[in-house]
């Protein structure tokens, strides 16, 4: 029995320990945000956060992530109440086919957790491991910038109220 902590919830799964985390998410838990792109850690469509760090879930066996915090795009918000990055991606229409976007959002999430005011260069460098075949990159950069702005504004108004 494998125990996974995903988006704050604990799941016991009866699967082989060498099952890739991505398969467990999609096939066992119906968390279909993370995508299977290459299956070889080349494209980033499967990116999730592991203890806050972006990681390729397609090349990580679940035996390695027992009792560690896994965050998927479903953990950032819902269609009704999207998180800051999800909202920004919608507002900037930063998707063409959309296949890479869950991975893009998760990688961007890791950046915004440590840097609320990234430059375009910071964003490009940080997002570099994730590929988009449609060429939506400029909109993705805009969306990350927009989300950073939203988070800064929210933090400033929270401070004002405090």
């Amino acid at each position, binding site marked *: 029995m494998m125990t996974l902590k995903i988006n704050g919830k604990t799941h016991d799964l009866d699967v082989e320990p060498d099952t890739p985390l991505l398969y467990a998410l999609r096939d066992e838990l119906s968390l279909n945000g993370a995508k299977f792109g290459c299956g070889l850690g080349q494209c980033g469509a499967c990116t999730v956060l592991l203890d806050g760090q972006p990681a390729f879930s397609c090349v990580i066996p679940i*035996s390695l992530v027992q009792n560690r915090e896994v965050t998927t795009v479903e953990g950032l918000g819902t269609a009704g109440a999207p998180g800051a990055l999800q909202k920004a991606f919608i507002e900037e229409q930063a998707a063409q086919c959309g296949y890479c976007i869950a991975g893009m959002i998760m990688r961007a999430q890791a950046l915004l957790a440590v840097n609320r005011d990234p430059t375009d260069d910071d964003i490009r460098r940080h997002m570099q491991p994730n590929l988009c075949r449609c060429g939506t990159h400029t909109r993705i950069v805009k969306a990350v910038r927009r989300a950073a702005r939203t988070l800064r504004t929210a933090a400033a108004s929270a401070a004002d109220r405090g």
Partner: protein
Amino acid sequence: MRRGRTGILVILAVVVVVVAAGVAVVWRPSLARETTTPSFPSQQVTRGAALAAIGNCITCHTKADGVPFAGGRAIETPFGTIYSVNVTPDHDTGIGGWSEAAFRRAMKDGVSRDGHHLYPAFPYDHMTRMQDDDIAAVYAFMMTRRPVHAEAPPNDLPFPFNFRPLIAGWKLLFLDRDATQPDTAKGPEWNRGAYLVEGLAHCGACHTPRNALGAEKTDEPYAGGESDGWIAPALNAASPAAVPWDAARLYNYLRHGFDAMHGIAAGPMAPVVNNLDAAPDKDVHAIAAYVADVVRPTPEKQAEGRKVVARLDDHAAASPSNHPGAAIYIGACAQCHGSLGRSPANPALNLALSSTLRMPQPDNAVRIIREGIRPAEGAGPIMPGFAAALTEQQLTTLLEFLRSQFARQSPWPDVAASVHRTLGNPTQEARSAQ
């Protein structure tokens, strides 16, 4: 009285001689600033570009995301941090005011145009062996780059290392200005290789161990050194290669960044082979021929290499090990690296051929697993980094397994400590990627 005066005169004379000798050793004149921009035949510039590529000049003289040759890269040394200077022809911050004579003096004697001594982080102990017309070609190449205004940050060196005149003493001890003499017993290719490897290419700067004063140990050439936190493996008989290097395999590796029996260039060696793209084929052959002669594997190593090759395919049939690292390997590594009963979907190096796993310390293996390998654009698939995926404990377990399963060597002394040390000390490449 008279004796006393003679004594004083003798002492004075000695002092004068010592001071004069000191000045002669330390003092170097400032050379006149060039105010005109020289022009060069395009053929000379092209030749200089190829030579600068072999010299790997761009790697140290460019900071992360910086303009090529505009300097500012931090070079960590045991004595402190030195920042590479701008070598574009900018008049204020670069070498725009340098004559060819000033450039030649810097390359051969490690002296800046204004007369100050340069730190030997700049490998003039190798460049000094270059022929003047090659230095002139590199000068022509540098002077025809786009000038960039960029001042390098001041060096961060504690006393006494920040006192440049001391470098003159270092040079007295360690700077051997004698040009490499051709060995008439060897052919022209070997001699060309010797000239490049010992001079411009400065391979020993990383692959030869250094003494307490930071000079290469001339009695242990190519016995293995260090570069930006990576182990630069021994190239001599102590080479960790599973299958001994020969000229043909060295050529593959240096020309294409990959050899089927050794794998892909990684770490600080990756930019070296990327730069060699611009080098003429016959120079890459010459470098390979000379380094192959440095390697000189023992008959035992040759035999071991043949054994490794013979059992390569056995790994695919090997039954899964019950080492706890085997489960990590099967889950995270086997889909590319194969073996242990799974055939690879994406053939990466069979780890039985890995030099990294046969090195005396696991540092390079730790870096590769954590940071991955990103070949030059289009040169092949990347190896993803597993920094976020593996805890320190998991990485340690995996390394112990890889060492015994694939290298079949005695265990590394303290893998956990090495993992911990490497974590606290990310390489420049990894730092700039963060």
